[in-house]
């Protein structure tokens, strides 16, 4: 099999220290510090303008940071040009060189490193086999489909066994099926080759399924860096809570023990509900729609709600309801075995206290 697979390189660690980047008077990246372990797969997730791409471009060397330091494998790379960093990179729109054949595209990094022609050809073909495009070397990029082109881009990025692979929304141009296939492909390569991956995406599902850890950015600042499960179940602030998945957010008054709704309903919360200390006063109660369940109206401990809309979506159904004070609560319940529910109907909502999270009602979050 190819050298790329058998050599089993280990990745390099990446340390980002107090990274800052200013464009004009806009702080695109603001004091971001992040340590990525060797061989780790980290996703940078955030809405557009969150600075995630700028962080990636700084690691790649295409942006020169205004502040801070970037170390790759312990070596300070902050001022190193991109071509000296030995990084593999996959871009959003494939960026295959249109005037070169697929094989020459993949061999390009080897050519830059002075590898002899025959050896280049051999290694390029091996890399193409790794992405399961063996025998495609003589074609031109425009003869390939989008998914194939992105595989070629991947082959080009890994052909010289870089310790770090950067990906800038590499799957955003592909349609859904291809995207899932490529996600698996990239995970497989990561497992086989052991390089460190930094992956920029705005697709939370992609981040959750692929990454060891996910770094959430907003307006140039790092919000949370956690594993997928923790990020989903215990988002560290309101932004992370609302950005990942669906979340009901209810304004409440918090007295230190109970969260009180405006219509005097209340729920007693365990200590674990607040991720950071919440002072008594107004607060936000957050709860995932799939953690809620339906009960008969008036059931002890349930909230009284009126169904506004029922959206049937196959395996599950979405119930949009409102409480007595008008605040909206959404539920995701299994469709099967459910008694038919109609808009206007009164129901009870059962809330498991351990599923509830409490955040300070601070607008700056």
């Amino acid at each position, binding site marked *: 099999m190819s050298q790329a697979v058998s050599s089993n390189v280990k990745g390099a660690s990446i340390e980002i220290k107090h990274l800052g980047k200013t464009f004009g008077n806009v702080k695109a990246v603001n004091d971001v510090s992040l340590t990525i372990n060797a061989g780790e797969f980290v996703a940078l997730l955030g809405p557009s303008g969150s600075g995630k791409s700028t962080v990636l471009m700084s690691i790649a060397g295409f942006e020169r940071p205004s502040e801070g330091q970037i170390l790759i494998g312990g070596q300070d790379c902050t001022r190193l040009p991109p071509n000296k960093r030995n990084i593999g990179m996959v871009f959003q729109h494939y960026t295959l*060189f249109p005037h070169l054949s697929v094989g020459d595209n993949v061999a390009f990094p080897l050519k830059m490193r002075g590898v002899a022609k025959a050896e280049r050809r051999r290694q390029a073909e091996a890399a193409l086999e790794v992405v399961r495009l063996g025998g495609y070397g003589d074609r031109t990029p425009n003869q390939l489909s989008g998914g194939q082109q992105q595989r070629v881009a991947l082959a080009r990025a890994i052909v010289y066994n870089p310790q770090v692979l950067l990906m800038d929304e590499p799957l955003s141009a592909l349609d859904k099926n291809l995207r899932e296939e490529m996600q698996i492909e990239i995970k497989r390569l990561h497992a086989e080759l052991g390089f460190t991956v930094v992956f920029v995406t705005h697709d939370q599902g992609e981040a959750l399924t692929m990454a060891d850890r996910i770094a959430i950015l907003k307006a140039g600042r790092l919000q949370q860096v956690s594993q997928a499960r923790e990020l989903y179940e215990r988002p560290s602030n309101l932004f992370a809570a609302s950005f990942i998945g669906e979340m009901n957010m209810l304004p409440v008054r918090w007295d230190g023990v109970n969260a009180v709704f405006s219509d005097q309903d209340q729920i007693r919360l365990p200590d674990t509900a607040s991720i950071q200390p919440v002072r008594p006063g107004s607060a936000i109660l957050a709860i995932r729609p799939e953690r809620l369940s339906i009960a008969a109206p008036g059931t002890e401990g349930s909230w009284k709600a009126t169904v506004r809309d029922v959206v049937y979506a196959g395996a599950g159904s979405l119930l949009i309801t409102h409480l007595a004070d008008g605040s909206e609560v959404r539920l995701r319940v299994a469709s099967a075995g459910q008694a038919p529910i109609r808009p206007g109907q009164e129901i009870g909502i059962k809330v498991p206290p351990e599923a509830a999270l409490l955040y300070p009602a601070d607008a700056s979050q």
Partner: protein
Amino acid sequence: MNPRAIILNAYVYAVLIFILLPILVILPMAFSETTYLTFPPEGMTLRWFEDFFGNSRWMAATWFSVKIAALTAITTAVIGTMATYALVRGAKAMGTLFQAFLIGPIVVPHIALAVALYLFFQNTGLSGTVFGYVAAHSIIAMPFTVFTVAAALSSVDPALEDAAMSCGANRFNAFRLVTLPIILPNVISGALFAFIISFDEPVIAFFLAGIRDKTLPRMMFDDIEQNLTPIIPAIAVMLTLLSIVVLLAAGLLKYVANRNAARVEQS
């Protein structure tokens, strides 16, 4: 066709006759046996072509013009591509100044430029020199080259060079191995137009000519002004052929460039 379209077409074809008539009239005269220019031409001879090629003054002027035009083409291609690249890939802030300087020499009437250069070159001894002509022709041909190259360059995704650099190429190699091959058809096509512009340029040539070193357009000007011999139609035939060749070449290059652009689009 509806009546409106018929009127439009009729009008346009009448205009086209006006556009083409002079050229269609002058070309056959190159083969006329008479020494005076009349239409329709009488007889059939290649005598005027022989006169042209046999005359050392015409030949010297032609070669002089070819030399100037070739150097102008190279100069504008190299300098224009360098500046355009810097502008498109880096120096947005300089865009306004650059454009002002770029179009200045073609907005200012050629007569003004020619007189200014006449004065300057008289004082510096550059009149009639290849260097002087190439400098003068380069600035008036430059916009054609720059806009052709800029159009190509702005359609090349800058990320391609990023990709090359992430593959280990330095900036120069990223340009040489990736961007340049993609824009090359446009660079060549720009250079071809610069060649034609220089080769046909009559006004600056009129003022900068020394006693001996005359360009072809300057020789033609003198001939037309003095006696208008049938050598002019003979030259017209050859210049028209040259223009056709250049236009066809440019069309071909445009086709190649479009194909490249389509590839860029897809990849």
